[in-house]
């Protein structure tokens, strides 16, 4: 505690910008293929692949937990950065729906990795990673802390409607992590929200208060695909152009555009509109589906693993999700 009070005296100019030191990720063991859906839904592997680009996704089962997955991703990020859990000053967990109603999933992850720092959950739907980076940037700018662990932990399988063939095939479970500290990495960030629950939402159970005659029952994920498609393509392209303009970046100078993996076709339309080659738009939707806010950090971590992402490369990230929210960032890894 004393150390934190002491460090709060650091001048803001010393830590105006943020960089990402490392990424980590974790996936559940169970793979659900498109063929698995044909056992209980009127659908086919061919239809799902053609319409979404998804071949399989991972789903949390058995003794696996969301916080366990988050902790595994966090440990990978720590190991890659050469850090210990005690080196982390803050844990931010982006999750659309946490493992428990309370406590926060970030607290559950903290316990599992053996950290002792403050913890906070962020819910910005699938835009959560960019929002969490924005919050981390603000925390680091205060000068009170040195490192923030961002963990995006998503278990969409817990609240999708497994009888709705138009949505349940789209999602997967995963966790991605990023360790942030002061440094010259984040060039620009833009987050937006347009309060509109209609096109994409879910309801938790309303409890059993005997004095309330309007208690909502739990309702699984609902999504109006056409509206989200339009929103996604329009706003992602605009956000990307805005963050690039903010830091004087041309599309040619960007090594990778890492976009939220909602649907292969959304990615293709965005790529066509941005007039950049397919190699600059990495994907993992084929094998992971849409893993909500975990999509981007999981993909970046996998790119580190296979050597595609190297230190010094320029990235533009973009996501959209329930809220409706969007987020985009330009950063040098």
């Amino acid at each position, binding site marked *: 505690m004393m150390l934190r009070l002491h460090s709060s005296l650091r001048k803001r100019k010393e830590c105006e910008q943020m960089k990402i030191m490392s990424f980590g990720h974790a996936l559940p063991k169970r793979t659900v293929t498109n063929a698995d859906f044909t056992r209980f839904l009127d659908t086919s592997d061919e239809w799902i692949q053609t*319409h979404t680009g998804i071949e399989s996704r991972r789903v949390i089962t058995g003794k696996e937990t969301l916080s366990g997955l988050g902790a595994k991703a966090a440990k990978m990020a720590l190991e890659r950065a050469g850090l210990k859990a005690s080196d982390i000053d803050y844990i931010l967990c982006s999750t659309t729906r946490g493992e428990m109603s309370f406590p926060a999933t970030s607290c559950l992850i903290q316990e599992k990795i053996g950290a002792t720092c403050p913890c906070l959950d962020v819910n910005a739907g699938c835009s959560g990673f960019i929002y969490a980076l924005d919050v981390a940037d603000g925390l680091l700018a205060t000068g009170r802390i040195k490192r923030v662990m961002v963990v995006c932990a998503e278990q969409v399988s817990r609240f999708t409607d497994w009888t709705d063939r138009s949505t349940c095939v789209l999602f997967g479970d995963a966790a991605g992590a990023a360790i942030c500290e002061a440094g010259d990495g984040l060039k620009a960030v833009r987050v937006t929200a347009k309060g509109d629950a209609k096109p994409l939402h879910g309801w938790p159970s309303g409890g059993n208060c005997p004095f309330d005659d309007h208690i909502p029952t739990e309702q699984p994920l609902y999504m109006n*695909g*056409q*509206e989200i*498609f*339009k929103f996604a*393509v*329009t706003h992602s392209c605009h956000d990307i152009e805005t963050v690039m303009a903010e830091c004087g970046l041309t599309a040619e100078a960007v090594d990778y555009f890492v976009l939220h993996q909602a*649907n292969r*076709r959304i990615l293709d*339309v965005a790529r066509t509109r941005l007039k950049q080659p397919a190699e600059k738009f990495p994907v993992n939707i084929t094998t992971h589906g849409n893993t909500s806010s975990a999509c981007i950090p999981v993909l970046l971590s996998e790119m580190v693993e296979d050597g595609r992402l190297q230190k010094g490369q320029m990235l533009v990230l973009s996501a959209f999700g329930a809220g409706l929210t969007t987020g985009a960032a330009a950063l040098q890894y």
Partner: protein
Amino acid sequence: MSTFETIAKLIAETKDMDIATIKPEMTFADMGLDSLDVAELVMNMEDELGVTIEISPALKTVADVAALVDEQKK
């Protein structure tokens, strides 16, 4: 170029179809277009024609969309 012809051209370009096969009374389903194809098409139409089109279940045929666009242009 009539609104129908403009829309037919956009459909042909977007979905790699022969423009001669596109008729006003054809439904999007007849042309093998799914809901996201329609959304993509609507976005291209908005860009090309400078209108705002709200996607609704009532928009089933090319003629339905052409009528909506003409109504907005008045």
